[in-house]
């Protein structure tokens, strides 16, 4: 259990790298750069 934080730091790094290399940020952009009618309660 003691090493759990270290494992999580590695996991964060690996996930971020995999997310960036696979273009996961484009998914974030595609959702965040469009007006979301649901967020506004209009749909």
């Amino acid at each position, binding site marked *: 259990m003691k090493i759990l934080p270290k494992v999580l730091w590695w996991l964060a790094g690996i996930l971020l790298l995999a997310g960036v290399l696979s273009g996961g940020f*484009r998914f974030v952009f595609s959702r*965040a750069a469009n007006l979301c009618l649901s967020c506004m309660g209009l749909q």
Partner: protein
Amino acid sequence: MKKRNFIQFLVAVWANSYFGFLIRGGIYTGKLKNLCFPGLNCYSCPLALMACPLGILQHVMATLRALPVVAVKGALYLLGSLLFYGLLLGRFVCGWICPFGFLQEMLYRIPLPKIGLPRRARLLKWGLFLGLVLALPFIFKGETGYGEVWFCRTFCPAGTLEAGLPNLVLEPQLRSLIGLLFYWKVLLLAGILLGSILYLRLFCKLFCPLGLIYGFFNRLGLFRLRWQEKNCIFCGLCEKMCPMELEIPKELNSLECIRCLNCLNACPTKSIELKGSFRLETRLDRLPFSVAERRHATRRESLRRNSSG
């Protein structure tokens, strides 16, 4: 204004500092929208620079069945971002960065009578997280094959305040879409804002799924609060100053602590400290008693000794 409130103010202003909508209309579509903001800040707000991680998490769940590969790529990036923010900051995000947390703290300053709520009510945020953020967006899909962002759609007060209301003012053509759902969200927003005047951080304590996620990192993240028994005089000031009404030291690293550091600053003997560590030290990070309990136990013990002596 306290230093922490000043930092909250600066971050809130920076995160909402896009004024291009005045010239071009619409919302910001520049490079920063590739990044998740750590706190709750609606990306459909005309002023917002970054993406809200809670909204993106729902979009991942809503897209998983229609476009699994795309959703998994998004999930890798989002989970990496959330893990990174969680490990580095944990609920410092709530106490120092989140604009909606700041707004609630300012509202609580309005001099009206204050109320208390049972601790059990805080379990509600588990229901919102598991139900509206994770389960419903995944389970119910529309004709297009995509699910809906249920928390944003039916609950999120930041969405109504930062996106719904300003966009309706700026874009009159949207007004034809106003329906029962919108009225419900406005009512809920009004209730939460009014409730925050009476009860400190009502939304954070009862409803916020993002705070719940970051709460898990209070025991695993880089910074943890430690209590030193040898210095403590059991005055109980720390518990009095805690905005989250926590038992200290029992709950110093619990899900609920927003890392405001009020306890640390209030302690006259510096018995509470903030320590950086990459290791989990269960003995120090999780203590099973509160200052009040320890004070009562000590008093009982000395009474017992006096009466037997």
